[in-house]
């Protein structure tokens, strides 16, 4: 849901709400029309009668008009969800500071439709969001329940906190030699006060400022020791610490109380949903932290040189959501990671809070960021508690720091300008040179591109040629194959032909014909001819008979035909006179002629027609009209009668013509009408009456009608007459036609018969001629025939002879065939041989052609290969690169040229700027400070200070909160900065020391608790720190472990490596050559150049035992102090020697840390160094192991202190592996342990502790660094 999107919703009022609104506005309509819409934060309340219930918070900043009306106060309206809208149940106005926006509330922009029943229902996305909104109380209850487990930490701190200020009289103020402490003698303090005021602040009565903090009390001597604040140390130096008359001092627990209050407020803020990251409570309290997991990793360019682990850490922290945890063993570059992270966040435009439990750690982390331009650090906190490294970043110093830095940079530029000018000129020249070179290369590339393009074209062309050659080749192959095949075939054929030739030759010989046979055949032919003549004779005789018979028959036929014509001509003559049908019939009968079928049919028709005419049966039309006529006649007579009956002069009525009623049907209609008129009762009534005018009119009308009827009767008669006459005319016409047809028919018949007669006569003539010829032939042939010759014999003889002759002819044909075949065979052989020769020539030509093609192909392939090389080259790519490069160079040159052009201006301005900076006044610095603070992007402070009110107001939220040394802070302390971060990065090492409570460790504190149950509860809490639990349970995207340490010489690292073994993980040394990089350069009786790990063993004997100061609790060990004195003197001398021998610079100092598990020992070491040794070549620093966490030195001397024969075998603080880990991991070059190995490896009760120290002794021995006390050193 988009926060800026305005959503409409209905709002109804209960009476109560209305009344409450009435206190602030005329009514709700006025109130809610002040703004078009309202920014509302909705908190879900527990449901009321199953209705969702809400509180609406109207913030003044987001609702200016409303706020103006409500005096800038926050309005809270309670509502329930009803009828798809809201029903307000109450309206209150709270204070200006009432929180409006929390993680529990839904921020929306609403436009209210007040008291309107209608209107659209609630938008679905709003409804859904409201449904999903957790009930705020429940969420808070959840957090409250979970945070209970942290209560213990607060209880510890609160234990002494709840004490009122204590005022006491004092005397005998004594300031110590370093002006750091004031000791006073107090009177009037009660017993319980003595035990509580340690840690309290002290101030003179009537003063506003604390002198310092109570660090020690001695009830017996009634003395109170106060550690002075830096400011009062300076005052003390001026001798004006205690004004005359100052007699009373006030001890107050205010600072501690306010700290606890801040921690408590942290709890409350988390409960109320004020965390910058709404997900924080889930991250902290769910068994498995709920974080939004991302697999998208940012690609970063790193500012610092980082190893793989550090890169992983920075990338992971930048990419992760909600929370990222970095576990960093000693020396693995946690601070580098933090610096890089700040740098990356700065690039991303984000503001970062760097927080830590202690001021020292904050300053350490910030110190590393120094060199990073773009990062503006602001150190927030009480000035006097900030270390030297952090000082320049406090608000009052940032401006002068910035001024100094800027001035130095400007002056450096001014100094460098002359050389810079020269450099730029040279660089421009070299850039131009480079450009010319690139240009030349670009031209070359252009040439190559052209070449390549040509090559591509040629390649394509050559490929075409090659293809066609290949095709040619395969064609030639095919052709060669076919020629070979043909050759083979021809050879085979030739062979076959020669075989056939031989065979034919043989056959020919067999088939040849003799002369004898020829003669015989000629004879047979003669005989046949004779026989044929004989046969012909017989045939002519037969034909003569036949012809004579035919002539006779034809003659008879002709006679019959002429008879057939007979009377027909007469009939035709008479026909023309016939006028009637009967006459025609008579004529036929008279001439004994049968009329043809069509004639008789027509005659029948005519006959019927005549009968109709005679009967008056006319066609249908006439009949129709006849009916009309009859009706007219009837009508006329009826009308005439009627008129006559009434004495109307009928005779005078004349016919009258009219054009209406023409057809028969129409006339019927007319008649129907007249008929109806006659029978109409009215007509009848009028007629029945005596004569009246009416009757007269009627009669006239009747007469009129009659006249019409007359007219119509005439018409009908005319029509009937015309119909009758046309019918008669038709009958007459048909008769004439009939007569003509009969005539035509007859005439045709006569002509036909005459033609038949003529034809018969012709045939007879022909037959007679034939007969004559036959007779002639017969007489000629008769010579060959005598009476013994029979026709049958002749026929048989002919048949026989014909067969003989046919056989002979056949034989002759066969012979001819063979001869032909022989001839064909020889032709074929010649032709085949010729073909063979031709093919051979073809074949040779083909082979030649083929060889040529192969040659050509080889040439082409060679060329293509060459071209391919050109084509595969990429001059375009190179050209593009070149163009880019040229552009870059040009841009760079232009930039430089501009700089060069600007030089005179730059000189002028920089000179002036330098002067201004140097003369910057108070006001200038103040302005710069404001600017700096406004744009500060890395803010450093301690966890607890991050909750201070002014800080909260200046910086309510950070994009990222980085917390360093997390394991040293308690969860309530961590919570304070965590609340402010949208994203939180935790950096720490849970194998190092846990938090301190006041001046004691948690364990020490818990040890002192008398109540067993409480003791147990609190120790349970310590088993796993928050950091450790998060590191264990977070998904891998949200955590990492740094694995390469750069601080310690490898041998030193080996002593702590066992603490970090975890699965595959091993602590690695990142120094490429430990001996070279961590050479301490010292050489003495005790220390050799290659020693990095030494243990000066103390016997577990009374002379070397620990001791306790009277009245104190802490321990010291005189024997170890003596040993340390010797060692320090030795190191001091060795350093001096190293300087003399040139291994070290004359003003160089070795940093040496002398540390111990016990405060008293540290105090004595301090005195030893300051008062007795006063080293000139060493930079010594002392402190407890716990205080040294986070620090590193070239050389560390570690004093174990514990050495006794007590049955408990306790080694106290040294039992904790984490403390030992910190103690061992502070040295870069040389770690020197002073302590009793027997005490630590044999006396402790716990096997684990003994093993831990035994392993350490073993490692030292392995490196040859174990030194037992001999000779003069022994305190025997």
């Amino acid at each position, binding site marked *: 849901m988009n926060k800026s999107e305005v959503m409409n919703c209905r709002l109804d009022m209960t009476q109560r709400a209305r009344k409450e609104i009435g206190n602030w506005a005329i009514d709700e309509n006025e109130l809610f029309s002040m703004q078009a819409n309202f920014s509302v934060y909705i908190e879900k309340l527990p449901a009321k009668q199953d209705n969702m219930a809400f509180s609406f918070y109207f913030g003044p900043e987001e609702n200016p008009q409303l706020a103006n009306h409500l005096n800038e106060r926050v309005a809270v309206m309670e509502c329930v969800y009803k009828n798809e809208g809201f029903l307000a149940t109450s309206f209150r106005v709270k204070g200006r500071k009432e929180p409006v926006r929390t993680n529990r509330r839904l921020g929306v922009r609403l436009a209210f439709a007040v008291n309107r029943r209608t209107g659209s229902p609630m938008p679905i996305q709003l409804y859904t969001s409201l449904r999903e909104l957790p009930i705020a109380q429940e969420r808070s209850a959840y957090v409250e329940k979970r945070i209970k487990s942290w209560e213990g930490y607060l209880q510890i701190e609160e234990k002494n906190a709840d004490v009122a200020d204590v005022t006491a009289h004092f005397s*005998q*103020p*004594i300031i*110590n*030699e370093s*002006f750091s402490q004031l*000791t006073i003698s107090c009177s009037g303090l009660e017993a319980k006060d003595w035990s509580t005021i340690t840690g309290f602040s002290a101030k003179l009565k009537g003063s506003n400022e604390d002198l310092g903090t109570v660090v020690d009390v001695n009830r017996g001597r009634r003395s109170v020791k106060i550690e002075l604040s830096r400011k009062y140390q300076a005052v003390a*130096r*001026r*001798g004006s610490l205690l004004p005359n008359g100052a007699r009373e001092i006030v001890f107050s627990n205010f600072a501690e109380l306010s700290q606890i209050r801040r921690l408590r407020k942290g709890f409350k803020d988390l409960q109320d949903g004020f965390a910058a990251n709404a997900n924080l409570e889930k991250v902290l309290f769910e068994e498995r932290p709920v974080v939004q997991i991302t697999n998208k990793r940012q690609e970063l360019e790193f500012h610092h040189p980082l190893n793989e682990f550090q890169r992983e850490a920075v990338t992971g922290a930048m990419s992760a959501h909600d929370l990222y945890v970095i576990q960093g063993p000693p020396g693995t570059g946690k601070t580098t990671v933090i610096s890089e992270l700040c740098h990356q966040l700065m690039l991303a435009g984000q503001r970062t809070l760097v927080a830590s439990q202690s001021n020292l750690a904050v300053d350490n982390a910030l110190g590393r960021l120094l060199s990073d331009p*773009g990062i*503006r650090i602001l150190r927030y906190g009480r000035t006097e508690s900030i270390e030297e490294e952090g000082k320049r970043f406090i608000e009052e110093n940032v401006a002068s720091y910035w001024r100094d830095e*800027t001035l130095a*940079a*400007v002056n450096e*530029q001014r100094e460098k300008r002359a050389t810079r000018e020269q450099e730029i000129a040279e660089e421009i020249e070299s850039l131009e040179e480079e450009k010319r070179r690139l240009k030349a290369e670009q031209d070359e590339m252009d040439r190559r591109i052209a070449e390549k393009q040509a090559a591509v074209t040629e390649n394509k062309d050559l490929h075409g040629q090659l293809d066609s050659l290949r095709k040619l080749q395969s064609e030639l192959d095919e052709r060669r194959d076919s020629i070979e095949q043909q050759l083979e075939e021809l050879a085979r054929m030739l062979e076959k032909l020669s075989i056939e030739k031989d065979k034919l030759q043989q056959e020919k010989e067999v088939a040849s014909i003799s002369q004898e046979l020829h003669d015989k055949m000629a004879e047979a032919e003669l005989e046949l001819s004779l026989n044929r003549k004989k046969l012909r004779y017989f045939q002519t005789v037969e034909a003569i008979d036949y012809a004579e018979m035919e002539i006779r028959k034809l003659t008879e036929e002709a006679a019959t035909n002429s008879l057939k014509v007979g009377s027909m001509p007469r009939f035709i003559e008479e026909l023309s006179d016939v006028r009637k049908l009967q006459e025609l019939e008579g004529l036929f009968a008279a001439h004994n002629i049968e009329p043809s079928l069509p004639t008789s049919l027509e005659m029948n028709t005519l006959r019927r027609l005549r009968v109709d005419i005679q009967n008056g049966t006319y066609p249908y039309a006439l009949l129709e009209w006849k009916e009309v006529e009859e009706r007219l006649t009837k009508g006329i007579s009826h009308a005439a009668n009627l008129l006559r009956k009434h004495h109307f002069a009928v005779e005078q009525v004349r016919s009258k013509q009219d054009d209406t009623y023409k057809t028969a049907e129409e006339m019927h209609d007319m008649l129907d009408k007249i008929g109806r008129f006659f029978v109409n009762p009215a007509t009848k009534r009028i007629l029945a009456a005596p004569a009246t005018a009416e009757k007269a009119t009627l009669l006239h009308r009747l007469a009129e009608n009659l006249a019409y009827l007359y007219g119509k009767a005439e018409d009908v008669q005319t029509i009937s007459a015309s119909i009758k006459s046309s019918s008669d005319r038709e009958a007459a016409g048909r008769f004439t036609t009939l007569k003509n047809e009969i005539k035509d028919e007859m005439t045709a018949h006569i002509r036909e018969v005459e033609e038949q007669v003529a034809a018969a006569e012709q045939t007879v003539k022909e037959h007679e001629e034939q007969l004559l010829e036959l007779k002639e032939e017969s007489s000629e042939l008769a010579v060959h025939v005598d009476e013994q010759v029979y026709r049958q014999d002749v026929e048989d003889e002919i048949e026989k002879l014909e067969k003989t002759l046919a056989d002979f002819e056949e034989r002759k044909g066969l012979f001819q065939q063979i001869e032909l075949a022989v001839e064909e065979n020889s032709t074929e052989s010649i032709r085949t041989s010729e073909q063979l020769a031709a093919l051979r020539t073809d074949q040779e030509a083909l082979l030649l052609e083929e060889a040529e093609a192969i040659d050509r192909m080889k040439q082409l392939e060679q060329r293509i290969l060459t071209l391919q090389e050109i084509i595969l080259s990429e001059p375009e790519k190179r050209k593009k690169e070149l163009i880019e490069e040229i552009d870059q160079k040009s841009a760079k040159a232009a930039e430089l040229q501009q700089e060069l052009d*600007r030089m005179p*201006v*730059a000189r*002028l*301005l*920089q000179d*002036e*700027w330098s002067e*201004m*900076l*140097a*003369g*910057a*006044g*108070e*006001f*200038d610095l*103040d*302005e*710069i400070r404001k*600017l700096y603070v*406004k*744009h500060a992007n890395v803010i450093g402070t301690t966890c607890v200070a991050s909750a201070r009110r002014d800080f909260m107001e200046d910086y309510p939220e950070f994009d990222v909160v980085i917390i360093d040394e997390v394991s040293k802070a308690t969860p309530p302390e961590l919570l304070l900065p965590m609340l402010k971060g949208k994203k939180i990065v935790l950096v720490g090492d849970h194998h190092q020391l846990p938090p301190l409570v006041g001046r004691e460790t948690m364990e020490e504190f818990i040890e002192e608790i008398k109540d067993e149950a409480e003791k147990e509860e609190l120790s349970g809490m310590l088993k796993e720190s928050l950091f450790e639990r998060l590191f264990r349970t977070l998904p891998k995207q949200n955590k990492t472990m740094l694995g390469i340490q750069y601080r310690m010489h490898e041998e030193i690292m080996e002593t702590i490596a066992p603490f970090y073994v975890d699965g595959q993980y091993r602590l690695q040394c990142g120094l490429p050559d430990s001996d070279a990089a961590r050479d301490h350069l010292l050489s003495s009786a005790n220390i050799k150049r290659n020693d990095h790990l030494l243990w000066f063993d103390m016997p577990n004997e009374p002379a070397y035992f620990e001791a306790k100061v009277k009245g104190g609790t802490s321990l010291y060990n005189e024997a170890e102090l003596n040993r340390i004195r010797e060692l320090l003197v030795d190191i001091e001398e060795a350093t001096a020697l190293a300087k003399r021998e040139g291994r070290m610079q004359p003003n160089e100092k070795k940093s040496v840390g002398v540390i111990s598990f016990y405060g008293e020992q540290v105090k004595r070491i301090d*005195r030893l160094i*300051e*008062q*007795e040794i*006063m080293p000139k070549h060493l930079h010594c620093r002392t402190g407890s192991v716990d205080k040294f966490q986070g620090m590193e030195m070239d050389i560390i001397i570690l004093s174990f202190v514990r050495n006794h024969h007590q049955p408990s075998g306790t080694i106290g603080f040294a039992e904790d592996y984490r403390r030992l880990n910190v103690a061992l991991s502070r040295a870069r070059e040389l770690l020197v342990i002073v302590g009793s190995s027997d005490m630590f490896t044999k006396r402790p009760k716990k096997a684990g502790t003994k093993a831990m120290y035994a392993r350490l002794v073993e490692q030292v021995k392995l490196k040859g660094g174990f030194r037992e006390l001999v000779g003069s050193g022994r305190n025997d």
Partner: protein
Amino acid sequence: MEALEKRLRDELLRDLNVKLLETVKWSLPIQVIDIEYETVKRTKMDILMKMLLVAFRTSRFSSSEELSDMLVVEPLFIEDIKERLNRAGMITKSGGAYALTETGRQQLESGIYIQPPEKDESTVHYSPSHGRFLAGEPTDGVGEMYRLAKDLRNLKEFTDDEWREALDLLDVTYQEGDVQLVVQAITSVKELERQSIPCIEFRLHQTADDRLYARVWNTMTSEWDETLENQIMENELTEWREKYLAE
């Protein structure tokens, strides 16, 4: 002097664990120097703003980066001030670069000075042993010179910044409403004389911790002088242990 010594001694010996080993009196040499300088009165215009106005008056700048590079000032700061100047109508953008408006020109003038520079002079005291100027009223001491005194410093070795710091100690500059008086330039310096400041040195032994230490009262600054104490302790503590505590 006697009274002072007694008061200081009593104070030191209030702690019963402290034993006085010896009291020594000597003089610390200081250089008395006269600085001549010019002051100017001008309106309150911070230097960064003034510098930007000067830059815009001098040349055309189109980007904050360019100015940022030249002045070695974060672009963010320049943007910030540019916006302020723009809002106040002191600059206007024309042709892609900023130029001063009439208002801007006038403001810049008054930001440089309201009245012409005035000459002034002050006397300062430099202690070579401290390596810095001391504030206070010197009285001329007698007797032995401080045994660890450093050589006097040649005036030519001082930078203007050091002179300005010395003047700062004297509070010669001031602000009033919209106007401030600032030191415009150091025109000349000359050494007037050499003086010696009387100092009282107490050599003490803190018996409870067996610590030896020195306390030196500087009569010019009227305080226990840490610098001198440290110099003495660093050089002589071992010697003292032998001299006073060897039995």
